[in-house]
């Protein structure tokens, strides 16, 4: 018994250290993703379509076995984005949308092999469209704001984001932020 407990303790300590590191790294990545959305279009105007916070939420959802953690992470990212939106868009719009994206991504990850690049591509494409459509619907239904939604543009942007997601997810895989070590 004593030998077993001694064997377990270092692994727990290591796991908790990784857990803390992962949380800090995730917060930092989220901040970078939001800053990129905030600042990158100023630097390169043609990157307005890039949705790094969404891709991060999808990645976290796909890699995390727990839908609760995924939806909470989605809510956190969404609310952070809402905070930088104009005041005519109340806080919670992106929060709700990304909560759902995180939850669905985690649910889907149980049923599909999410390590496959093709599946990742399709899922990112689908989640971008869902995200754009749901946000547009909420603005229309809850706030009464008649904002145009161009289907063709949305499809093109979804394809671009899916293309960006593949190398991004590979980089994140290498960073081992998915939680396998803590699980």
């Amino acid at each position: 018994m004593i030998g077993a407990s001694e064997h377990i303790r270092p692994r727990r300590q290591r796991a908790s250290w990784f857990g803390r590191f992962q949380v800090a790294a995730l917060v930092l990545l989220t901040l970078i993703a939001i800053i990129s959305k905030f600042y990158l279009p100023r630097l390169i105007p043609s990157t307005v379509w890039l949705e790094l916070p969404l891709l991060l939420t999808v990645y976290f959802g796909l890699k995390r076995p727990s839908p609760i953690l995924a939806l909470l992470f989605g809510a956190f990212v969404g609310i952070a984005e809402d905070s930088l939106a104009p005041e005519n868009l109340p806080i919670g719009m992106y929060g709700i949308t990304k909560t759902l994206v995180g939850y669905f991504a985690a649910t889907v990850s149980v049923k599909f092999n999410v390590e496959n690049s093709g599946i990742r591509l399709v899922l990112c494409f689908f989640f971008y469209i869902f995200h754009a459509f749901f946000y547009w619907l909420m603005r229309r239904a809850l706030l009464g704001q008649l904002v145009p939604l161009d289907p063709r543009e949305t499809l093109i942007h979804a394809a671009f984001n899916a293309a960006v997601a593949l190398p991004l997810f590979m980089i994140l895989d290498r960073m081992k932020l998915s939680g396998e070590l803590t699980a």
Partner: protein
Amino acid sequence: MEALLSRYRNLTVLLVVVVGQLLYLAYQVKTSRDERLIRVWAVSAVTPMAGVVEAIRHNTIGFLQDYFILLDVREQNRKLKADNDKLRMENVYFRNQLSTAEHARALTLFQAQSPSKTVAARVIGNSTVASAKAVFIDRGSTSGIEKGMAVVTPDGIVGKVVAVYPLVAQVLLVTDPTFKVGVESQKGHVHGVLDCGNGPCVVEQIQEEEKVTPGEWFFTSGEDRIFPKGFPVGTVIAVQPGQGMKDVKLNLSGAPGGVEEVLVVLHGVHQPIPVGPVVEDSTTKALPPPPPESGAAGKQQAVSQTEADKVVQKYEQIGKEQNHVYGGLASGLPNFNAKPPANTPATQAPAPKATPQTPPPPAKAAPVLPLGAPRPKPERPTQPPQ
């Protein structure tokens, strides 16, 4: 119940989180209250980083250009550009004033009103919502910026301040779907509402019988209580009959999407809509070259411009009459009290009398005019208004 909740734990948490956010959202909409604390935290966390990134980018490029290529020309250029922007703003004001039908009235208006007071700011970031057209500028409440202030460039309107933080402010651009601006046409003074929500900007609420032509300028009407009246908005690119209302498409002159430096109007001044050609005439118009002078004919055509010119001409005439050579040896002094002949140019202008017979009317405060601006004609004595 507990078994049910534990079985559907994920779904329960999802519902709780979503419903919680929905209730919070409904609370914000219902009370029209914005959760300022969360926004302040987020802006305070993000904008310094964006500011640092922007400063690094700007300084790196600037350093290379300043010290290796252009030395200090870039700094000088920036200063000149700022001065130029300020002068262009003033120019808009002066042109608008001077192009009104009654020149004297415009000058009186100018005297009574002061030009809009502005503060320059740099755009440092976009909004996180792609469909919402908003930007952050590097000036906040510490620079005197307040919510609702208009944001313009010398070319046209940009947007309005919707949120103010200590060091930054958020500006909603006129191209945002929820933004409407009251506008007025230059020729027919047709009032409408500018809406850039669905693709190209259109002017709504214009009746079919109103006359609007392509190429015509639209200006802010001041009715939205955001932009002072008289700021250029854009030109009409197409006019089509619609369903009950005219379909007027407008090309914005301010290019709010790609603007990098803006002016926040701290104190706006309404101006009349100009009747003449508008500000945005970027081509420099030069005067034709002067005709070649030919001896005395050229001299006769020369018209005295200032009082000093007239005095010089008068003395020259006196010198000629008395055969006096100015600067000549032992030539003495000419009689300056002698009157020059009546047909000389110097005497054509009314000479001011030293001792007037009647007391002069109370002098009106002369309007302060910019250099080169045309001077008003002397007013005729009129009856005081009854």
